[in-house]
């Protein structure tokens, strides 16, 4: 299996740092792409729609972000999804343990699973190897 491309969409800089270091520790070949909010990520995906190497295999999506939050990202991503040469697997990642957030995420067809922060190294391993 070739090294996966992972997109981290989160405004939390500490989470970005710790997560990308953990991912690289698990597999030094992974490409981690960091986006501070949903809007930045969406415009990048739209630009690289036909570039399979730049597009992520996995997206880790935060809910609470300025401008374009996780929910808005999912709405807009659905519109560009068909034009992408590679369809990523989306995990929703949040520190929220609010049941409304969890059920809302799980009922969304684009979201494979909902992960509660903090995320351990072991959990990242399972995620990458899926």
């Amino acid at each position: 299996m070739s090294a996966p491309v992972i997109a981290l969409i989160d405004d939390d800089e500490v989470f970005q740092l710790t997560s990308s270091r953990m991912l690289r520790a698990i597999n030094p070949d992974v490409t981690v792409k960091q986006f501070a909010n949903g809007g930045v990520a969406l415009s990048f995906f739209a630009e690289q729609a036909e570039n399979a190497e730049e597009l992520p295999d996995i997206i880790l999506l935060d809910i609470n972000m300025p401008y374009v939050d996780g929910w808005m990202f999912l709405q807009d991503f659905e519109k560009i999804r068909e034009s992408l040469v590679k369809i990523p697997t989306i995990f929703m990642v949040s520190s929220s343990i609010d049941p409304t957030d969890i059920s809302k995420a799980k009922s969304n067809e684009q979201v494979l699973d909902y992960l509660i922060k903090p995320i351990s190294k072991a959990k990242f391993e399972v995620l990458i190897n899926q």
Partner: protein
Amino acid sequence: MKMPPRKKVKRKSAPSLQPKKDDGSLIQSIEMAGMGFWQWIVGSDVIEWSQQVFKLYNITPKEFDGTYESFLNLIHPQDRSKVSKIIDHAFSKGKNYSVQHRIKVKNGKIRWIEGVGHVVKNPKGKVIKIAGFVRDITAEKKIETERANWKNRFDLIAKSAGVVLYDFDIRSGKINWSGESSETLGYTNKEMGDVDVWGKRIHPEDRVQAIALLDNAMRNISRYDVSYRFKHKNGTYIHLHDRGFFLAGEDGKAQTMLGMMNDISDRLEAEGKFQKLIRDLSIGVRVHNVNGQVMVSNQKAEELLDFHPKGLAGLATENRLVKEDQSFFTPDELPVHTVIKTKKKKRDVVAGIVGKNNSVTWAMLHAEPLTDTSGKLVQIVTTLTDITENKKVQSALMESENRFRTLQEASFGGIGLHDKGIIIDCNQGLCELTGYTQKELIGMNGLNLIAEEYRSFVLERIVSGYDKPYDTEGVKKDGSRYFLEIRGKNIPYLGKQIRVTEFRDITDRKKSEQKISEQNAKLIAVAEDLKIKNEQLQEFTQIVSHNLRSPVGNILTLLEFVEQSQNQKEKDEYHALLKVSAEKIQNTLTELHEVLRIKQNTNIEKQHLYFDDILDATKLLLHTQIVQSGTRILADFTNCPTILYPKVYLDSIFLNLISNAIKYGKTNITPLIEIKTEIKEGTCYLTCADNGLGIDLNKHGQKIFKLNKTFHSHPESRGIGLFMIKNQIEAMGGMIGVESEVNNGTTFIVNFGNQIMQ
């Protein structure tokens, strides 16, 4: 006209026949009897008349020339040939004659004359003269004519009445028939023959009885009235009704039988049919005479009275009739006797007929008087209708009615039975409920028990037969009102549809309902409050989830990293990040504390504040940002310069709105902030409009006033943001809203609630 040969003599007048001395006395006496004498000597052409003849003909001798022609001229034209024939006959045959004829006398009147002629012959038998008398028979003729007229009329009457008249001479056995014999009996009067012929034509079965009856009447010289069958000429028998009377002769014995008969076959047939009808009727019919005795009764009457028909007539069956209370009827109480006494009909008398085995058959009795044309009572007709079954049904009904009454008296509610709204019965419960007595209620319109404004509503339900309970308001006799539940049902009762209505006082229920609804309102208010509290809790949950858990999670991860790291430089990096995360938690906790304080402290001290002062203080705080961005602030507080408000809150509101406006300004345009106050409908409004980036409210509208990282990245604002000012404004009874379009600036509108300075 054949005339005997005569010598015609012309004379001025007829020779007067003078009585001769030898026979004068005879002629005189004839003349004195009013008879005229005349003679006509053969060979002479002159008829000689005595004085009396001239008188009878009412002419003078000068007016009669004595010729035969002149004589014939005097005779009535209709009788002329008859007279002439007879006279010719007398001459030619030598026969005496007698003739009656009419003459027309001068005054135009008709006079009847009887002429008698005597032929005188010589010894050789040759007629030598005719002599005779004439007399006036007008009076006799008149009587005769009248009699004939009467006879004609009588016949006509008899014919038109369809009766046959007869006059039977008992001694000769001859019968003079007249009237309608051929129409009725088929025979002409002649063919009817004598008494023997009549007797033979009577039906053999009826003959002996009829003749015996007539014989009896004949012996008593009395009237008779008999019916028998008589053989018609066509061979069939018809029913004859024959009545008349016997007349006695001088010897005191019956001499003449005068009578009339008519065909009553049709009537008998009709009567037979009618009788059969009466017999077969399902109601008993009896005809009584004026003494109350039964003359006729039909089969049903006999059945009902349990009598053999032959034993029925005249028997005092009434002895066995009982009233509904089982006591016997006295004779005066019986309908037939009532009718005899009052001559008015008596109806609807219920009587029980006690049978042989003491079983009782119940009958409804009616009695009707039959009077003749003069109004005299002739007969009484009574009818009996078997109502035993009805009685059974009725007593069953009464029993169930009694049960029902017991039941409804035991019921706590009021029960009324009404027919088209009028109460026909009710229980004690209804009296207690409404305050009326039972007497007052019965006959009253049930709608009067309903409060006026509900009557049409209730009436609608009565008319439509609505049978489910419904609430309305009742009104008592004293005018007081009460809550009422009504349930009505249409039921058949004694042959008609009536409505049973149950009244239930539901005042208590209504009161508890009211209490319940009051409590319900309270509960709703509490629930509303709880909902708000819950929303706030959810808000806090979110804050905890996103704003506290997130840095805590980071701290845990970073601590792990620090533990695993061998590199001091790396460790230092993690420590710095740990500090950032810890500060985040610190900030969030401060915010939460602030929000809780705002929410709990609605009685925060209010001050008399001037918007100008607050704006000046804010400008001072944001001095660096304003100068760096070149922001221009236009303020107008003239419409509402002051407000009674917590100073901390108003500072916070101004600081946040203005700092946001600067922060989200467009890079290529100098930020312009217009801030003003005004009063609308007694409330102070603040608007703060900028020319900045604007916000896509469709995307961000929901979270704009929520605790969000976006709004607390400025360390100077102590991280409070729109979330905090929203809480402050709402805590003071106000509201905050936003209007914005992307690239077209943002306007915040603050409604301060009723915080205006008086």
